[in-house]
């Protein structure tokens, strides 16, 4: 089916998310809580776009105990949706950068900026949208976290579930159970690597990694010395994927060295004249 994004006609499969379609067609929609490998969270609301189609009649008003839509009477009224989780099921027209959207993004960024003044990701977007820091609002000076939830989603995806969001409303935070070192944490750093604003601190020093108040022993590549991961992480992966092929005669190899070794082994095998006992 066809989707018109900012005037450009794009092809799309039914059920595809708007953000994917836009990306494929090199249309830039800003995102903060989006990660290709994880399901859309729709928490940061930066990727809002305006959609216009026949689906958004009054019946599009969601239902339930709460009013999900305050008065949509005009069939041709544009609706604000988040591109990361909006599935395209009909031919629609989309705007990604209208005046209204820019103003709304500016409001969202103003809020995020007040929350996490130290976040570089927010800082860059804020500059782009001309957001100024509101100095009357209280904020924690050293705060970087924007509570997008990517770290929790990544940890769940790993199957460890060592961190979760705690509390609700304005007191929400991300933490390990009771803020103590989590038993199930394997020190894999998935959370820190998906974090858009570098808010999860960790240190790799003297063969030890510290993250979420827990210390791990680091394992390095036997050939080049590059850090592969923590001992717990490799054990966990081994448990899930069966005995690891990486452990070869007591050798632990990183991805790169493993490829080198495989290549040389294959070369060695394909030499003519060699026989195997």
């Amino acid at each position, binding site marked *: 089916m066809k989707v018109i994004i900012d005037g450009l006609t794009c092809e799309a499969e039914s059920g595809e998310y708007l953000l994917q379609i836009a990306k494929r067609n090199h249309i830039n929609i800003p995102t903060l809580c989006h990660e290709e490998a994880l399901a859309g969270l729709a928490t940061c609301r930066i990727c809002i776009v305006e959609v216009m189609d026949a689906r958004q009649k009054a019946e599009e008003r969601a239902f339930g105990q709460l009013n999900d839509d305050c008065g949509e009477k005009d069939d041709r009224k544009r609706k604000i949706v988040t591109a990361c989780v909006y*599935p395209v099921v009909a031919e629609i027209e989309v705007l990604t950068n209208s005046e209204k959207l820019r103003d709304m993004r500016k409001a969202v960024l103003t809020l995020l900026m007040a929350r996490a003044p130290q976040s570089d990701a927010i800082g860059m977007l804020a500059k782009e949208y001309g957001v100024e820091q509101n100095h009357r609002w209280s904020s924690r000076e050293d705060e970087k976290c924007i509570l997008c939830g990517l770290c929790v989603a990544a940890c769940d995806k790993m199957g460890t579930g060592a961190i979760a969001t705690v509390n609700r409303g304005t007191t929400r935070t991300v933490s390990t159970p009771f803020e103590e070192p989590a038993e199930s944490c394997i020190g894999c750093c998935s959370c820190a690597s998906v974090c858009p604003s570098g808010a999860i601190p960790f240190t790799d020093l003297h063969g030890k990694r510290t993250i979420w108040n827990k210390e791990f022993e680091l394992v390095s590549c036997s050939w080049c010395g590059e850090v592969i991961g923590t001992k717990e992480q490799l054990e966990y992966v081994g448990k899930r994927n069966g005995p690891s092929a990486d452990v070869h005669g007591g050798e632990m190899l990183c991805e790169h060295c493993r490829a080198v070794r495989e290549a040389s082994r294959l070369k060695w095998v394909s030499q003519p004249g060699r026989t195997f006992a």
Partner: protein
Amino acid sequence: MNGHDGTNFEKILVCCGTCCLANNSMDIDSGLKERIQQAGLPLEVEPMVKATGCSGLCENGPIVRFLPDDLCYYKVKPGDVDEVFEKTVLNKQEIDRLMHREPEQRNRVRTREENSFYKKQFRIALRNTGEIDPFSIQDYMERGGYSAAKKALKMTPEEILTEIEGSGLRGRGGAGFPTGRKWRQCAGIGRYPKYTICNGDEGDPGAFMDRCILEGDPHSIIEGMLIGSLAIGANSGYLYIRNEYGLAVRTMEEAICQAREKGFLGKNIFGSGYEFHLQIVKGGGAFVCGESTALMASIEGNTGEPRAKYIRSVERGLWGQPTLLNNVETWANIPEIINRGGSWFSSIGTEKSKGTKVFSLVGKVKNNGLVEVPMGITLRELIFEIGGGIIGGRRFKAVQTGGPSGGCIPQELLDMKVDFDSLEAADSMMGSGGMIVMDERTCMVDTARYYINFLSEESCGKCVPCREGLRRMLEVLDGITEGKGSEEDLELLIWLGSMMKEAALCGLGKSAPNPVLSTIKYFRQEYLSHIRDQRCPAGICKKLTTFRILEEKCTGCGLCKKNCGVGAISGKPRLSHVIDEELCTRCGNCIDVCRFQAVEIG
């Protein structure tokens, strides 16, 4: 009127809703039962005493009714039981002091019909509450219970859908989505299993209509859900009830057990071979779990957080299966629609809002309680005729409709008709039907602040506009109530609010700015008083309030002095009194008790 020659009372109904229970109505019930048993048989017909659900006029509970004569007693105390038994039950005499007195009138009225609180009401969803013993399925069946389910079993799903569509019923949970259309969408999807859910997670402050139906007429919900399940082809359903509603959970558990015993639930309903199971899930006390997708997440055992609803629950709801979720009051209406026909239902109400709506009328209104009225009644009728006007004869200021995320409607809109669309047009919403009446001693800035505070605690915190927006709105409003506001603050609130309305993830966030936006729209002057004059006209915001006693009006009666908790008022009897500003805590007791309007807000 003594010695009224009434017929023998066949039934005595004692209201045992939550409010009346709190006033010992259970003792009245057991006391009457005991006396009648002990008395042997001096009576021709031994009256049956029944403990019923809420009968609505909670302000005047506990209520005792004598049927078929319909004599009503209000505010009965356990100490009155002897007198009621001696005079009324044995000798058919009325007890004057227990009967209702209409405001403005001298004489007492006997019956419920004569009481203006009930005059304009029309009961569909509440047809049985206060009339039957909720713990007795027999009572429900005597009033035609389960006949609609039997009828529905003989109908095709298509016929049921047509009936519900024809009724024009719209969701009573708040959004007002056409129920029939929702059912048809769900019926049209060919994936099984399907589920039905009843949303009983009523969390709005001051709203208790769902609770009363759950406590007073549980079987109507079971029957409604059974009919809905027949229409869409579901074999199991869930009742999601707040854990705080202890009595509602107990009543519902009992009702499900009785319905199973009778064969109205289970494997072979009425011998038709149709299977339907119901189970109760208790909500853990999060307001956001009243939002349908959060509620489903909660039933699944996940954190109760909403998801984006671009794919609707009727397609992928509970466990990714087609799910039909309706609110308690919506389900309670269904059996009546099947019994009496959709066209009967759609003959009540306005063009786009059919039927009746239950409102919980609370706040500064004389008759606090539960009312069910046809859609399209005006706010004035609701507040001044049914509600009896404002307590203490004060001036009406605003009415807040639709729960914490509804708006405040000012005096100039009192003649507005109450239905989904006009409330929305007035920047408020129907919501689940809470109505909080405010008088001149209510500060609108403080009211907005209260609701934003409530919502900021109850927001799930998942999305930025709601979590961060409410946090900052609260900061700004706190500033205004403390006299640190500026006029730019109002523009900032409007800017943030209009973004939240569209960019938030769920209904809670989208409607959260309503209290702020509507009070700025209708009561801007009051905001400006706080900002420019550093004064709270209602005398509520402590930092911006001083109380003074006007010498020329004060009679020196000393009532304010007696009621001052900190001894800030001094004065000799019959001479004008004085308030010591240093000691005064701005509690407002003096202004509230003064009968001569001698206390002025400075």
